[in-house]
């Protein structure tokens, strides 16, 4: 009897196990095939779910409305109440708000660019490491005029990536630092064109042949994009026995702290080497240009005029 019972139990377990296993494997394969075949349609449908989730998170993180501020600052306020009295706390709150709004205003002005090309400001609702696959998730999409393959900027000239997918109300940005991204970069200092590889987490690796002197602080640009500063070399790893040395580039501003980005209205187009070289030369001259205030400009021109007049007078004498 005991023998019979254990056999029954064993066979039940085996049947249950295989039945469930086959079911699971079937559904996993179905899921993989559906992504492969219907990726675009599923992405658009899924974006209607993922976008609001990301937007709600951003709302609670950044909004100045009563509820998010309450939720966000609750713990900080509890601490500050212990340290400061009510009046002082409210005063510092006002100052902080003004400071925050001023900074935000400056950031938005900068994002719109001073280079003549039209850009659109978009809010970042998902950023690494929270966002899957090391991507940026923007709160503007097809309805707002964002196009695929448009270059995405932070600050005035910092190219951070390009629009990979556009959904009705959101867009996905592939960063130049995302794992698997490859591009051609130009390094000022050694003045060489090199291959850049995204390493993930906001880090870009440049492969440079041994013997070329690369130093920390060298500026790296993307010659195919204007303006297209990527960042500066932060670390150089060179092993004498290896054919290549690696320079690691990071952005001036950490990706984790991005709140707004500028999206170019035009789509990036492939360019020839000659065009790239011309852009690099233009960028090179920009590096040494300083915007001089008007008062000083007048002083410089007056000084030069005076000097010229003095020279002419000497020559005449």
């Amino acid at each position, binding site marked *: 009897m005991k023998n019979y019972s254990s056999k029954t139990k064993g066979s039940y*377990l085996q049947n*249950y*196990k295989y039945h*469930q*296993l086959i*079911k*699971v*494997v079937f*559904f*996993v394969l*179905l*899921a*993989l095939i*559906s*992504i492969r075949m*219907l*990726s675009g349609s*599923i*992405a658009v449908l*899924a*974006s209607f*779910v*993922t976008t609001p*989730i*990301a937007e709600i*998170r951003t709302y609670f993180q950044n909004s100045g409305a009563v509820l998010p501020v309450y939720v966000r600052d609750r713990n900080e306020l509890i601490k500050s109440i212990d340290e400061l009295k009510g009046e002082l706390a409210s005063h510092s709150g006002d100052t902080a708000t003004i400071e925050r709004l001023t900074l935000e205003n400056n950031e938005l002005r900068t994002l719109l660019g001073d280079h003549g090309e039209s850009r659109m400001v978009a809010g970042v609702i*998902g950023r690494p*490491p*929270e*966002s*899957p*696959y090391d*991507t940026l*998730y923007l709160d503007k999409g097809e309805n707002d005029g964002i196009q695929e393959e448009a270059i995405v900027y932070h600050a005035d000239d910092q190219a951070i990536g390009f629009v*990979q*997918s556009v*959904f009705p109300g959101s867009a*996905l940005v*592939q960063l130049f630092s*995302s*794992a*698997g991204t490859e591009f051609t970069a130009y390094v000022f200092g050694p003045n060489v064109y090199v291959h850049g590889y995204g390493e993930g987490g906001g880090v870009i690796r440049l492969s440079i042949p041994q013997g070329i002197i690369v130093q920390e602080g060298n500026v790296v640009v993307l010659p195919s994009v204007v303006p297209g500063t990527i960042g500066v070399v932060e670390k150089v790893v060179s092993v004498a026995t290896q054919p290549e040395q690696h320079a690691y580039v990071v952005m001036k501003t950490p990706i984790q702290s991005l709140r707004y980005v500028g999206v170019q209205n035009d789509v990036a187009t492939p360019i020839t080497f000659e065009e790239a070289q011309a852009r690099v030369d233009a960028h090179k001259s920009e590096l040494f240009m300083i915007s001089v205030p008007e008062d000083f400009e007048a002083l410089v021109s007056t000084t030069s005029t005076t000097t010229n007049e003095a020279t002419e007078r000497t020559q005449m004498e």
Partner: protein
Amino acid sequence: MRVLLFVCVFCVAVLMPFPFFVASLLVYMFFYTGLELLFIGVCIDAVFGASAQIDVQYTYTLTIGCFLVCTQLIKPYLKFYNS
């Protein structure tokens, strides 16, 4: 309860780093069979995975699939589920 937990796992997948997602998967699978979790994987991979390299393009779906298979193999031997 199941729907609530499912929504939580979905939110974790979209809003938090990958290790947190794996942890939430384990919690969910401890209670339920979790075939519906594949829906989360498909959504995340379809929206965000388009930009990824081909070898990591289906990370979320494959992770959920592996966890489902493992739990199906382990569950029958756990006294907790046979009591």
